[in-house]
């Protein structure tokens, strides 16, 4: 994985010193809150309901064991012994003191991490496929481009005060695990007929108040043109994106209002005007970065592991976990391990410092020292030998990390909601917990099969409810929480925005409503048909009838 060189180190150190100085000026009164707020947000520090919250960037979701251990140390030393992994592959600490924040940033800098641009109207942490570098279906590892874009977007002087926040996702595989169609910019790597690699550039997707699937502005952009082309897009957005209404300020609204064709021609005109030589060097730079992401030295192993097969026969719990939580690795004899941070009745995405250390140990011992954070708020060990899976499973089991529900009904995405977040209109976590308990029976989850339930506590949609197969949005009706259910969303390559089913539900009614929806699915599904496929075949009607007939 990427390692900082002297320049990266110095850059982050200077930035941390700058923030220490800004914090001192705020505490002494030299800066007002209005002046300080944008500065702290650009360094990931929010003021939430109970305290400050620090959001730490985990670029493209990749961590080493040492970094994960440092995250655990921060949780113990400056927070309350835990952290929350987010849908942007980041981690948040909920109980941070302003006066401690500069020390925490120093502590992160020691392990080549920072909180730069995890908030603010700038280019946010670039996300990617959490199976990058390991997935069987991958064309190329998208993380070198992720790192290139991290560097390019860090304190970009032209694009630090955009109309609104800006999110970029990158995928190098045909099966889209990075939700590139619902990002401000999505980049999808593919090969042309000649076997050359290029990028499909998708613009104007997004969730929030106005969910939209992005449009393709370039089918096949050569890699060395990426930065120049992205700058052209950013400049068109910076100049012409709406600034009169923050709910209409994302790039998707600009694309929608002027039309995809006009937008595209504005970008092409801007790109043609630009002096291109300044992007030339980045090809060399990309080669330098890519070297850090060279695949580890995999052992030559048989595809079939006798010890793994025997262990499954002897241990049904392990067999079930292996069936649900492993992903296909591109190298024989290896698996991708998905660690679910969704124990029954737990808080989606939360991990204790102790659990973080266990995962760090496992990565160092069995996983080429690599961990990933997925946008579904789980942790991935991308390269584990099949022979080692039982040992990994047992260690996970000992620390409440062995939930065998990856990709199933219990694997719920939920934002922190009103329990923590100052913007939320309703709680998300208790709803996730009640659904998780309702479907605690593992046989039932297996029977239901692949399912994404996504919950957001407000219209900003951090819980990606629009693209959940089942989406749940918490709203406030005269001081009471209520929840709207959408069906049929997807963030995969065939992305779609969910449809609102009907009137909302009180918090305690949501789990029953989900059960009704899933019973309806089980009744109507054809053999082997997943929930989303059944919904797409039948539409909302049978679900509506089942849900509202008795009400």
């Amino acid at each position, binding site marked *: 994985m990427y390692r900082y060189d002297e320049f990266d180190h110095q850059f982050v150190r200077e930035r941390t010193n700058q923030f220490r100085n800004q914090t001192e000026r*705020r*505490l*002494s*009164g030299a800066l007002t*809150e209005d002046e300080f707020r944008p500065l702290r947000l650009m360094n990931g520090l929010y*003021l*939430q*309901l*109970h*305290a*400050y919250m620090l959001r730490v960037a985990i670029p493209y979701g990749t961590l080493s064991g040492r970094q994960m251990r440092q995250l655990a140390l921060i949780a113990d030393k400056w927070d*309350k012994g835990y952290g929350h992994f987010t849908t942007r592959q980041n981690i948040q600490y909920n*109980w*941070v*003191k*302003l*006066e401690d924040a500069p020390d925490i940033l120093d502590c992160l800098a020691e392990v080549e991490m920072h909180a730069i641009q995890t908030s603010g109207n700038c280019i946010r942490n670039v996300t990617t496929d959490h199976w990058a570098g390991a997935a069987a279906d991958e064309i190329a590892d998208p993380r070198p481009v992720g790192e290139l874009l991290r560097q390019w977007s860090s304190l970009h002087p032209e694009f630090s005060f955009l109309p609104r926040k800006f999110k970029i996702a990158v995928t190098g595989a045909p099966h889209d695990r990075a939700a590139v169609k619902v990002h401000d910019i999505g980049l999808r790597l593919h090969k042309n007929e000649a076997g050359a690699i290029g990028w499909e550039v998708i613009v104007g997707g997004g969730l929030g108040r106005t969910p939209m699937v992005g449009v393709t502005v370039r089918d096949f952009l050569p890699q060395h043109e990426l930065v120049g082309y992205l700058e052209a897009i950013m400049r068109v957005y910076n100049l012409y994106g709406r600034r009169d209404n923050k709910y209409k300020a994302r790039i998707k609204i600009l694309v929608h209002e002027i039309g995809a064709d006009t937008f595209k021609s504005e970008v092409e005109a801007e790109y043609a005007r630009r002096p291109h030589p300044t992007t030339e060097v980045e090809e060399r730079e990309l080669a330098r970065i890519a070297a850090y992401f060279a695949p580890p030295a995999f052992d030559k192993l048989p595809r079939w592991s006798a010890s793994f097969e025997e262990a499954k026969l002897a241990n049904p719990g392990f067999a079930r976990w292996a069936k649900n939580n492993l992903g296909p690795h591109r190298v024989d004899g290896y698996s991708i391990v998905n660690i679910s941070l969704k124990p029954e009745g737990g*808080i989606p995405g939360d991990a204790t410092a102790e659990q973080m250390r266990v995962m760090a140990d496992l990565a160092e011992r069995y996983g080429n020292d690599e961990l990933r954070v997925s946008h579904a708020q789980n942790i991935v060990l991308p390269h584990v030998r099949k022979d080692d899976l039982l040992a990994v499973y047992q260690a996970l089991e000992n620390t409440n990390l062995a939930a065998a529900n990856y990709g199933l009904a219990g694997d719920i995405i939920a934002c922190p909601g*009103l*329990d*923590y977040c100052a913007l939320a209109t309703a*709680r998300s*976590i*208790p*709803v996730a*917990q*009640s659904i998780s308990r309702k479907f605690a029976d593992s046989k039932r989850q297996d029977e239901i099969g692949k399912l994404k339930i996504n919950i957001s506590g407000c219209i900003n949609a951090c819980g990606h409810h629009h693209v959940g197969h089942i989406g749940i949005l918490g709203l406030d009706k005269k*001081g*009471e*929480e209520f929840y709207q259910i959408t069906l049929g969303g997807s963030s995969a390559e065939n992305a779609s925005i969910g449809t609102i089913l009907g009137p909302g539900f009180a*918090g*305690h009614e949501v*789990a029953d409503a989900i059960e009704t929806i899933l019973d309806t699915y089980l009744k109507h599904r054809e053999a082997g048909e997943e929930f989303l496929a059944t919904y797409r075949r039948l539409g909302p009607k049978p679900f509506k009838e089942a849900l509202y007939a008795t009400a």
Partner: protein
Amino acid sequence: MNTSEKGQLVTANRLRDGIAVFLTRSGAWSEEIDEAVLALEPEAAAALEGRAREDEKKTIVTGAYLVDAERLNGRVRAAHIRERMRALGPTVRLDLGKQAEGKGAAFAAPEGE
């Protein structure tokens, strides 16, 4: 005997550590909502808010605002669940926040699921 007064209190976050605090009669800030002073008249509320603005300038607190609340038998209940949550801590982690430190308010946020 039940006594009830409806009015407004001022809440803010302490600048240093971000903890939710409530303005008391003495002009100090308390972590406990039950110690908040309740303004029963709009003029009194404006005066409280003015005092809070001064404390913002002195960098004691930040983001002060008025909240509808009720005093019932000497304990304070904020009208909105968001504020009851701030007075207690997260409903999903009863082991954390004011509720765990003996500073919890009497009136729970909504029931857990």
